[in-house]
């Protein structure tokens, strides 16, 4: 009898532990906790770690002197062969992550064991340009929020993994999709729509976290009668299909009550003649009132873009110590167009801008930050190429070093071919072709993230570049043979973590770029932003490589 009951006893204990662990978070993640996320560094509560989006942790167990002792703690294998581009969030020992395309997983953040999975099967009608993937979750109270590849927003109970509500955000048949990790501000869940290659009209929208009802919507292309509409010249319907998508998470300044979002390219991508004018607010950053969605200011990086230089990068907010003792409220931006910008985030004023890689599409910026363009002759390479000097890979800022760190592609070019594009709902709307990044080479290098680096030095190399916000100069550079798709994490102890397409996870000295440690080859591309958290006082660092999440820490 006793023996027959034993399995049930064990099972009961197991369930008891799970319930206890999940009950610990019943108080939930309030807006106050999100506001003060840096005060609880053991948790990682938003996509970029805090509203300032610095991807910086105050955890200090891992230092520049002990990274050599880092060891693999656990691995989670995703049951998906899509790209693993999510940043997990962690709250009170529970990790929540998304598995492409739209599965949510709750795990024990210390052991990697799974509590539950919620699998949403997106409609086959969705047609994202570049992979059926997802970049992560938002969280408020005890509810998770996931934006789906078929343009729906789903609320999920963080304890049970059961859906709470679902809202249709846009029509996937018209090319709308969502890959973004939602941003929660106050009682609202804010998302943006992808689809810049399908002639969508982009927007950012806020939804009531309790009900899923839409609260406000900001179209990233102004309609007739709205300021900025005149930048879609010609009087046609170019604005209706002008793209300006939103596919990375914004930031928030609570003092100004402004939320900042990067806006994608205008469409058709490579034929600007079809959409004369500056094409606001494509390739811009917009500052919106978080309560109403009203535009406070904007800054456009690339007017009338020829090259698909999406400006969706993470807006990094920095309270920078000025020499006179005051604090400057800045926004730092490593743009896909190859320039590193410093803006005043109170009003959008251009402070400075300098190229961080070799470029030839512009010779510089004027006093207002507008590019002085130098279009290249047809059939010749434009630097940076279509993938940009950087792209969606999360940058980092360290208040310790006062440096901005960006993952970059160097010496990568594209020859752009232009052709007329006809808008058809749900069809690609590109307006051109992409030529060989290796001029004269017989074949296109393989963009597929395979095991073989057939990009080689001929098609560009990767680097982590540390930029000084004051001078715009590179303080140091860590070069890689292959280009990099990884984001960057910095720590208060001056360790910088990053990966790359080669599948190594690196720890660098954030002060000088010296390689402190690297993992064994993890067998797949690292294409996400590393993050850090702690459980029971022990610090962990997580990076996804290939289809697995690899979690490292120091020996106990």
């Amino acid at each position: 009898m006793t023996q027959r009951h034993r399995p049930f006893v064990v099972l009961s204990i197991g369930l008891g532990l799970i319930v206890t662990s999940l009950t610990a978070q019943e108080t939930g993640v309030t807006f106050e906790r999100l506001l003060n996320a840096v005060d609880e560094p053991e948790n990682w509560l938003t996509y970029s770690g805090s509203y300032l989006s610095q991807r910086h942790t105050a955890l200090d167990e891992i230092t520049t002197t002990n990274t050599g002792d880092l060891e693999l703690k656990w691995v989670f294998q995703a049951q998906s062969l899509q790209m693993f581009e999510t940043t997990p969030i962690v709250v009170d020992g529970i990790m929540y992550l998304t598995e492409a395309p739209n599965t949510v997983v709750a795990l024990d953040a210390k052991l990697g064991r799974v509590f539950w999975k919620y699998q949403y099967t997106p409609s086959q009608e969705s047609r994202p340009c570049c992979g059926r993937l997802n970049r992560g979750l938002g969280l408020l109270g005890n509810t998770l929020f996931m934006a789906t590849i078929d343009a729906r927003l789903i609320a999920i109970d963080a304890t049970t993994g059961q859906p709470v509500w679902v809202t249709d955000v846009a029509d996937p048949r018209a090319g709308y999709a969502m890959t973004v990790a939602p941003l929660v501000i106050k009682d609202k869940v804010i998302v943006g729509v992808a689809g810049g290659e399908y002639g969508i009209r982009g927007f950012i929208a806020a939804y009531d976290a309790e009900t899923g009802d839409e609260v406000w919507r900001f179209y990233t292309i102004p309609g007739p009668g709205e300021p900025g509409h005149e930048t879609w010249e010609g009087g046609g319907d170019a604005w209706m299909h002008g793209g300006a998508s939103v596919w990375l998470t914004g930031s928030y300044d609570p003092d100004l009550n402004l939320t900042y979002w990067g806006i994608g390219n205008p469409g058709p991508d490579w034929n600007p003649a079809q959409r004369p004018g500056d094409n606001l607010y494509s390739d811009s950053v917009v500052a919106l009132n978080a309560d109403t969605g009203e535009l406070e200011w904007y800054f456009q990086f690339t007017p009338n873009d020829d090259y698909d230089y999406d400006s969706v990068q993470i807006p990094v907010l920095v309270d920078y110590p000025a020499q006179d003792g005051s604090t400057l409220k800045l926004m730092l931006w490593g743009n896909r167009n190859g320039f590193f910008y410093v803006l005043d985030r109170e009003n959008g004023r251009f402070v400075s801008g300098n190229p961080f890689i070799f470029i030839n599409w512009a010779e510089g910026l004027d006093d207002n930050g507008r590019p002085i363009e130098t279009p290249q002759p047809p059939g010749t390479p434009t630097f940076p190429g279509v993938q940009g000097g950087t792209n969606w890979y999360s940058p980092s800022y360290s208040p310790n070093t006062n440096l901005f760190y960006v993952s970059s592609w160097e010496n990568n070019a594209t020859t752009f071919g232009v052709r007329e594009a006809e808008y058809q709902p749900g069809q690609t709307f590109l307006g051109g072709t992409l030529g060989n990044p290796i001029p004269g080479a017989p074949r296109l290098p393989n963009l597929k993230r395979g095991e073989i680096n057939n990009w080689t030095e001929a098609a560009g190399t990767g680097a982590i570049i540390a930029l000084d916000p004051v001078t715009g100069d590179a303080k140091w550079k860590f070069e890689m043979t292959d280009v990099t798709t990884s984001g960057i994490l910095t720590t208060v102890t001056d360790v910088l973590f990053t990966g790359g397409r080669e599948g190594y996870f690196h720890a660098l000295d954030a002060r000088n770029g010296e390689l402190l440690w690297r993992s064994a080859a993890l067998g797949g591309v690292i294409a996400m932003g590393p993050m850090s958290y702690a459980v029971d006082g022990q610090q962990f660092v997580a990076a996804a490589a290939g289809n697995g999440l690899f979690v490292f820490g120091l020996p106990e």
Partner: protein
Amino acid sequence: MTYTVTLILGAAFVVTFSPVRAENQEHAGQYAQADIDYGLGLYRTTCATCHAEDGAGVPGVNLRNATPRAETDEALVQLIQTGIPDTAMPPGEYSQAELTALVAYVRTMGEVDPGNVRIGDATRGESIVMGKGDCTRCHRVKRADSLSSAPALIEIGAIRTAGSLEASLLDPTGTMIPINRPIRAVLADGTVVKGRRLNEDTYSVQLIDDNGRLRSLDKTMLREFTILETSPMPSYVDSLTEQEIADVVAYLLTLRGVEGL
């Protein structure tokens, strides 16, 4: 009747709801090499009969330059599936992977196979490859041939177009795929290793050396490491006639590896 209805519904579903997707595309408009290679093989077996190897086989249609009836990839998928009524272009049944590959190849064939290529006599070409061209001194055309660092030609006809083969014979350095660049490394003990690069990352390089041996070197342990930009293969622009080049291309196109694969 039921069978017919199912087929029609199935086709409608595919056309309406399954736009071509290359899941590993970094960007719409860019195509994976694996898809391009796969598409080349499919193109040869299903399209080249009418459209010809160079894409210009149908009067007034040159697939290398433009597909005016199919501006977008989705439209090209639809066209391949449904054909063009009242023309010789028939409907075709393909899997999603095959459609992805065909689109990838057709969209890039202008870049991988420029120009008109003369294709000569394969039998004469074989004689030149074995004799005057001295190709087998470095390249294997049969598995029994001796190993070296040069790419094996055993299935070259299945993975390369006539245009790229001709270009390689005339300008081997200019057409060398960068990953294939020769490398020269000096090991810590002074040993010199030469070979053809197969893969490389920040810390290591994988190669096939001049003895046909697979090697992996730790770059941090090397005294010297050089990536050469000149191909060890000579140009045949002066040593073979145009006819002989055409004959060699014809022979190379017959090298298709293991039958059935």
